[in-house]
C-alpha cells in the first residue's frame, strides 16, 4: 500500500470521527440552546449538563430495529441514508482547518464541495421516493426544487469571490484574507462594495441548502409528519440526522473560509485552528438561534425569495464586482 492511500484512509477516518463527534454534540448543543431560549434547561439528566445524552441517544438508535416498509424500494431505501452521510464526510477532506491541517488541498476544492452538496439532495429524493410514502414523496419533491433554486444564488456569490481571489482552492481563498478582519471578504472594499449583502445571501442559502429552519420544508413536521424520513427508524434515521449536522458544519466552514478569513485571527495575530473552530461554532450557534426563533416559510415563499430576491441581487453584485475589478 502506498503512502498516499494510507494518508487518504487516515484522513477519511479522522473526517468521519470529526463529523460523528460534531453531529452528536451539536444535537446536544442545539437541544440545550433551544432549551435556554425557551427558558427550560434542556437535557440535563444524563451526566453533568446532560453531556452523556448523545451517547444515550446513539445507543437507543442503534438498538432499534430497522424497519423497511412494505412496498418500499429496498435498495434505494437502504442507500439513501448512506448517501446522506457519505458526501458530507467526503467534503471534510478538502476543508482546510488551518494553514497545515487539511487532508487534501485541491485546486477545485470549492467545486468539489458543491458537487458533494448536490449529492445530499439526491439522498433526500431517494429517501422520500423509495419509502413509498405520500408525505415522503411530497417532501422530496420540495427538497429538490429547493436545492436547485438555492444553489444558483450560492454559486453566483461564490463566483464573485473566486473572481476577486483568482483561485478555487479553499486554502488560497483563506490565505488571501490573512491579516486583520479588515482584510476579510465580508468587509466591503472599493472593488466589492456589496460584500455584506453577498454574505447575507450566502448565509441564507446555506441555511436552505442544509435544510435548516426556516427552510426545513423537506421535513416540515407539522405538515408532512417528518417529511422524507417519515419511514426511517433506527440508524437509518440516525444517519440522516448526522448527515444534517455534518452538512451544517461544512456550511459554516465554507462561510468562514469564503467570508470570515478562515483561520485568521480578527486582529491579525496568531492565526490558528482555534480561530477557525471558534468562527464555525459561532456560526452554528446562529443557525440554532435562527431555527428556534422563526416559523417556517412556505414552498412558494421560499422559491420567490430565491428567484425574485436572492438571484437578481447576487447577479447584480457579480456584474458590479466584475466591472469594478476592471476599474481598480
Amino acid at each position, binding site marked *: 500500500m502506498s503512502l498516499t492511500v494510507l494518508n487518504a484512509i487516515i484522513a477519511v477516518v479522522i473526517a468521519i470521527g470529526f463529523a460523528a463527534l460534531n453531529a452528536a454534540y451539536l444535537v446536544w448543543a442545539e437541544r440545550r440552546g433551544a432549551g435556554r431560549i425557551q427558558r427550560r*434547561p434542556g437535557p440535563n439528566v444524563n451526566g453533568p449538563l446532560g453531556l452523556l445524552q448523545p451517547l444515550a441517544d446513539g445507543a437507543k438508535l442503534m438498538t432499534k430495529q430497522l424497519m423497511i416498509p412494505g412496498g418500499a424500494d429496498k435498495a434505494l431505501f437502504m442507500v439513501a441514508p448512506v448517501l446522506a452521510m457519505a458526501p458530507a464526510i467526503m467534503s471534510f477532506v478538502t476543508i482546510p482547518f488551518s494553514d497545515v491541517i487539511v487532508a487534501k488541498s485541491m485546486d477545485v476544492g470549492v467545486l468539489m464541495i458543491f458537487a458533494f452538496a448536490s449529492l445530499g439532495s439526491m439522498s433526500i429524493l431517494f429517501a422520500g421516493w423509495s419509502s413509498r410514502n405520500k408525505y415522503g414523496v411530497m417532501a422530496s419533491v420540495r427538497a429538490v426544487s429547493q436545492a436547485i433554486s438555492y444553489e444558483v444564488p450560492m454559486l453566483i456569490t461564490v463566483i464573485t469571490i473566486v473572481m476577486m481571489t483568482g483561485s478555487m482552492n479553499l486554502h488560497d481563498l483563506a490565505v488571501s484574507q490573512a491579516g486583520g478582519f479588515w482584510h476579510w471578504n465580508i468587509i466591503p472594499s472599493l472593488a466589492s462594495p456589496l460584500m455584506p449583502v453577498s454574505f447575507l445571501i450566502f448565509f441564507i442559502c446555506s441555511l436552505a441548502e442544509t435544510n435548516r429552519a426556516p427552510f426545513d420544508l423537506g421535513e416540515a413536521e407539522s405538515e408532512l409528519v417528518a417529511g422524507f424520513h417519515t419511514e426511517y427508524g433506527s440508524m437509518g434515521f440516525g444517519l440522516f440526522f448526522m448527515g444534517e449536522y455534518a452538512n451544517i458544519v461544512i456550511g459554516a466552514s465554507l462561510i468562514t473560509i469564503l467570508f470570515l478569513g478562515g483561520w485568521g485571527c480578527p486582529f491579525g495575530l496568531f492565526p490558528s485552528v482555534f480561530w477557525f473552530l471558534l468562527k464555525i461554532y459561532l456560526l452554528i450557534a446562529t443557525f440554532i438561534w435562527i431555527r428556534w426563533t422563526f416559523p417556517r416559510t412556505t414552498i412558494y415563499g421560499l422559491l420567490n425569495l430565491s428567484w425574485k430576491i436572492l438571484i437578481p441581487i447576487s447577479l447584480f453584485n457579480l456584474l458590479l464586482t466584475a466591472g469594478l475589478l476592471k476599474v481598480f
Partner: protein
Amino acid sequence: MGAYFSEIFRGLQSLAIGMGITFREFFKPVVTVSYPMETLKMSARYRGHIELVEDEKGQPKCVACGMCQRACPSGCISLASESVEYEVEEKGETKTKKKKVLTKYNLNFTTCSLCGQCVENCSFGAIDFSKEYNLASSRKEDFHFDLLQRLKERNS
C-alpha cells in the same frame, strides 16, 4: 423598485427584532421545575381523589348515608355498612342504640371525574380531597382505592 427594497429591509428588520427577543430570553433564568427531583406543593383547594376524614378518635366521620354514592355522576364510589348496637348513658340509664358503621368504602379512581359532587353533597364533612397527584401506574387495579384501608394506614 422602492417598494421592493423597502419590503426586503422591513423583512430583515422584523427578523432582527425577533432574534433580539430570543437572545434576551436566552439569558433569563429557567422557569421549569425538574419534576421528579423537585415537586410543587399543591394549593389548599387542589382536588385529588377523595379521602375519608377522621374524627377525634381516629374513626371515619362517615355515617354511611350514601349521599356521595348517589351524587356521583360516574358511579365510582361504592360503600357498605352494617348496623352495630352500642350503649349510651342517657338520663342515668344505659340504653342500647343502633347505628350504621362503615365497613367498606371503595373508590374506583379510573372513572372519577374529580367534579367534587360527593364532597359537596356530604352533610357531615366526612370526605375531603387529598393532595396526592403522583398517581401513575400501568395497572388498572392500582386505582381502586380502599379508603378505609388508607385511613388506617395513615393513622398507624
